[in-house]
């Protein structure tokens, strides 16, 4: 019963508001004089009064983000401390050491190696992994048989759902010591020890990038396929009339249509360029390939976290994310200048 009256009251409120609005429109400024000082503020207040309930929908997520994303940003202060695991971030017995952790990190004889390993791994990964899904999407989109397209799509997406542990496990069973490739190469008269790709520093990047693309090229193509499905078929018809072949139409119809999506994806991936996933790199690290496989984020993990050097680990992580932010800003700026589209 109470509920019903509540609803009725709400309904009344709603009607009242509508009537008020109508009056306001009718006699112009008569009623507005009162809140002429801050009309926007009044409007905002009215809106808040009516809709504050919806804040409850986003509150849990917001609180979560503040605790698990923003508090760690506050935790960056640890980079300037001599921090022992278990201490509070800022307390009475905090020892501030200024830039000492950064100095330790930058003066590490291997610092440049870690930096270039990260950079090269990510740049090569980007150079292969960025165009591949676009090409696949364009090819898939040009298929005439809807059934073949659908079937291939399902197949291409599937590896995305294989876990990293399993993925690297498979890689090792196929390319690792005593793996399939080694056995086959021994049979064909190669070295008796096999190729031992997982112990070779020069094989790490190709293996990492190849397996990453194997897993994700189909998945990354989704976004382009979705954009391509929005292309107006009459454009294709018109181009056909002008005698454009299917191949030609890829460049003059399809590509221009998905260009905004491509640019958006490019900004996003350049902004995350230096994050190439330490989880997988850690799985693929062996004593033999450390020379190329130790990157900044694995250094944070092994030295900072497992080694208990929290201060230095935080400093190294901060260095990595600052580079990312700089790259993002550059990418956004460039695309604004060159292609006149940007994220902000």
């Amino acid at each position, binding site marked *: 019963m109470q509920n019903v009256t509540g609803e009725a009251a709400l*309904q009344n409120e*709603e009607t009242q508001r509508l009537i008020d609005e109508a009056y306001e429109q009718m006699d112009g400024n008569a009623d507005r004089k009162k809140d002429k000082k801050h009309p926007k503020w009044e409007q905002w207040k009215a809106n*808040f009064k009516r*809709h*504050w309930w*919806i*804040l409850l*929908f*986003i509150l*849990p*997520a917001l609180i*979560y*983000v503040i605790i*698990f994303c923003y*508090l*760690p*940003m*506050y*935790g*960056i202060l*640890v980079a300037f401390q001599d*921090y022992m695991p278990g201490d509070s971030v800022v307390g009475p017995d905090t020892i501030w050491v200024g830039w000492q952790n950064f100095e330790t990190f930058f003066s590490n004889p291997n610092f440049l190696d870690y930096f270039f390993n990260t950079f090269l791994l990510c740049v090569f990964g980007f150079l292969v992994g960025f165009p591949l899904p676009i090409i*696949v999407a364009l*090819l*898939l989109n040009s*298929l005439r048989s809807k059934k073949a397209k659908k079937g*291939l799509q*399902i197949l*291409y*997406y*599937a590896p995305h*759902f*294989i*876990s990293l*542990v*399993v993925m690297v*496990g*498979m890689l090792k*069973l196929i390319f690792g*010591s005593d793996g*399939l490739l080694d*056995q086959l190469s021994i049979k064909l008269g190669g070295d008796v020890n096999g190729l031992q790709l997982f112990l070779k520093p020069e094989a790490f990047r190709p293996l990492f990038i190849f397996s990453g693309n*194997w897993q994700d*090229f189909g998945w990354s193509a989704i*976004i382009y396929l*979705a*954009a391509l499905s929005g292309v107006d078929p009459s454009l294709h018809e018109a181009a056909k009339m002008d005698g454009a*072949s*299917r*191949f030609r139409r890829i460049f003059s119809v399809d590509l221009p249509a998905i260009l905004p999506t491509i640019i958006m994806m490019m900004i996003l991936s350049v902004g995350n360029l230096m994050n190439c996933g330490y*989880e997988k790199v850690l*799985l693929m690290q062996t004593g033999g390939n450390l020379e190329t496989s130790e990157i900044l984020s694995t250094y*944070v*993990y092994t030295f900072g*976290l497992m080694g208990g050097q929290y201060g230095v*680990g935080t400093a190294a*992580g*901060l260095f990595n*994310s600052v580079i990312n932010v700089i790259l*993002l800003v550059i990418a956004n700026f460039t695309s604004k200048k060159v292609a006149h589209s940007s994220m902000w």
Partner: protein
Amino acid sequence: MEKQQLRTLKRQNKIKESKTDYVYYVICAIILALLAIIIIYPLYYIVIASISDPDAVMTGDVWLYPIKVTFSGYAALFEREDIWRGYFFTLLYTILGTAFNIVLTIPAGWALSRQYLPFRKLIMVLLIITMFFGGGLVPYIIICRALGLYQNPLILIIGGGVSVYNVFMCKSFFESNVPKEVLEAGMIDGAGEVRTFFDLVLPISKSIISVMILFYAVGHWNNYIDAYIFNIDSQFYPLQTVLNGLLDQTSGGEGDVILEQMRAATQIKFTSIIIATVPILVLYPMIEKHFGQGVLVGSFK
């Protein structure tokens, strides 16, 4: 008679029209088929190796078809208590964790999709910043430690609770897929924010909810590193962490005993990979039909 002539005429015309196209389509089909083979072969190899005699696998004889089919690898897997315990905990973490994710993400996406949400711009900026900048791994762990989540399996459920990217995906879904008329009708009937959401919006949002379930569930299912990072007791390890220990084993030494161990270890590597992958590969086609453009394309606005 005339019909036939017409048909041949049509056919001739078609070929003439698309001679260059024909070459293109053939090349296109070849490339796509090659990609398909590249995807299928490793998976196929793992399957045939898992049911072959381990000796044949270790000598590289198995590469096209299974040799001396045996299911001893699967039998050995059943005796591995750690794997089944890992399985149980992974299911537990995945189900509870995904439920937690959904409860946080879907309402947040709905709220953000409403223009009248108070502080909307501020909230958006707060969320977007986290997509590109964060405290990093070590401060994250320091904070979790302060919250009592270190060495606490609870972190495997509530860790990664909100993916901002997913929230925005929900937001754009709601923006383009919830008809204004429905909401207006609800308002006239006097439904409040809560009623509107549960009675009007949720019933027409099954596709985004199932896609979110898939995304988050895959994340939980595949997570192996958090158990190490948070120093979780090994009896609470999820499957992927157990599996990592298993797959990482490199056997060395000589002698018959070690050879026997090596055979068993090799075999169990293949079978455990299959056991750990099948559930997610079964779940995926069921939800795949929802990957329509409507759900995914809007996420980049």
